[in-house]
């Protein structure tokens, strides 16, 4: 019961954090992955109040938002001095900082942690930038295995009009740092196509739950909630001494 029940005893992706004492993690880690412009944040904003109504405390964490490194990453991006290696290492450092200071404490306290992107974002981006995929994965051996990983699936053709009509194409999301094309529109398509390819490869490697992101916001949300409820019910069912009135509806 103290173990993360659904991992067959395995909690960590690799070596974990050898210097940290293993503690029970009664919370749940739910990850939402997708490329840019798919509506990930909107979905997360909708999940939170729903879960809170169901009686769960919710904590959010987002990519490159660590207090230790977010400023450094932004500065470095502005200065164009990053290489694929330093990029990858900075992502890993940002992730480790949030893992140890936000995610693990929240899970210990029994929160549902919703992660807006997780290590898979690094795997996709690093690989597209030219890093060895095996090396990228090794960097993240400290990672906790999430309970659920949703992949919001969309193809470039559907993505392009959404982004153009939405917040527009930015330098990094268009992969301009890779010099794929001098035209930002073309570069965006080529870069995002490659990123999406990498995500698709990871569906089996990591057992993502693929959600069709071409649907409406409501459709996607319903789908997410269905999977999350299933998971939470199973988790409750597996707990010892779970009383019937614990069932939530």
């Amino acid at each position: 019961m103290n173990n993360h029940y659904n991992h067959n005893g395995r909690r960590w992706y690799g070596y974990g954090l050898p210097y940290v004492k293993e503690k029970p993690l009664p919370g749940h880690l739910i990850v939402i992955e997708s490329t840019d412009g798919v509506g990930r944040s909107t979905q997360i904003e909708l999940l939170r109040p729903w879960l809170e109504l169901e009686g769960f405390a919710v904590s959010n964490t987002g990519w490159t938002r660590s207090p230790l490194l977010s400023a450094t990453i932004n500065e470095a991006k502005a200065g164009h001095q990053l290489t694929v290696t330093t990029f990858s290492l900075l992502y890993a450092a940002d992730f480790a900082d949030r893992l140890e200071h936000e995610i693990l404490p929240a899970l210990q306290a029994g929160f549902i942690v919703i992660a807006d992107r997780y290590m898979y974002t690094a795997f996709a981006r690093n690989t597209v930038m030219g890093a060895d995929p095996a090396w990228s994965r090794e960097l993240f051996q400290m990672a906790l295995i999430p309970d659920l990983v949703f992949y919001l699936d969309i193809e470039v053709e559907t993505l392009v009009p959404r982004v153009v009509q939405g917040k527009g194409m930015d330098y990094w999301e268009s992969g301009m740092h890779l010099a794929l094309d001098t035209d930002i529109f073309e570069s965006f398509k080529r870069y995002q196509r490659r990123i999406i390819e990498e995500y698709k490869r990871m569906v089996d490697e990591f057992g993502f739950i693929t959600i069709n992101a071409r649907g409406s916001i409501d459709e996607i949300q319903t789908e997410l909630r269905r999977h999350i409820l299933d998971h939470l019910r199973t988790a409750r069912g597996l707990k010892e001494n779970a009383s019937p009135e614990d069932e939530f509806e």
Partner: protein
Amino acid sequence: MSSNNENGFETGVGVNSDPAAEIGHAGAHRAISDSLAKQSLLKSPHPFPGRLIAVEGIDGSGKSTQLQLLARWLRARGYPVHFTEWNSSRLVRNAMRRGKRKNLLTPTTFSLLHAVDFADRFTYQILPPLKGGMIVLADRYVYTAFARDVARGVHPGWVRSVYNFALRPDLTIYFRVPIEVSLERLLAGRAKLKYHEAGMDVGLSVEPVESFRLFQSRVLEIYDELTLEYGLRIIQATGEIPNQQRVIRKMVQEVLRGYDRQPASGDDEQSLQP
């Protein structure tokens, strides 16, 4: 590091025999096998015309002093020298300062920030001069991470993976010194030991000098193992400074055998100043 995404991908880290791979989505995360034995650039000579010479050892071992003397000697003999020092890149300076001051660093982030520093210097300060036929002098190299970060508690296999892009130096000299000697030198030079240098973050003792003893003893033990694993050359760092320098210059001469001396390109003096 391979830039070939297509081919690189198939050689991933999956271990298919993992029983967890059978159950459900979360179980699909295949275990990463111990990558210690994997092809390591640190185990074979680099192909470039320059020379890479590194010094290693705990604080107060005298390695920096000896490296400066070596640099003077090499430059006086007309060799093009480039000097680079651990934890000196501007890229992570602010994060490192903030992390240390506010005590935000964990063993893992401490390790990764130093890896960013190293990777940045490797790209801009080590590789190009090495390719251009210069003599690169490195004050600390990846072995510092292998020793210190593991003493802080990270997995030895993980930290080796992190640095798997690093090239093997032509010569790495390890300055072996007893704890008491290093302590004496440090305390004579400045009144207080630095927080992380003393390993205070590890929590072995609340008393800095005692913490330094305990933490750096661990580091020394690991260094001894590293000398075997990576063939580091040992200097007994308790000897007279000129005697040590004589031994070092002899080691360097061996490494310079066959070196195709490039014309010393202009004024490289400033690269020696930290």
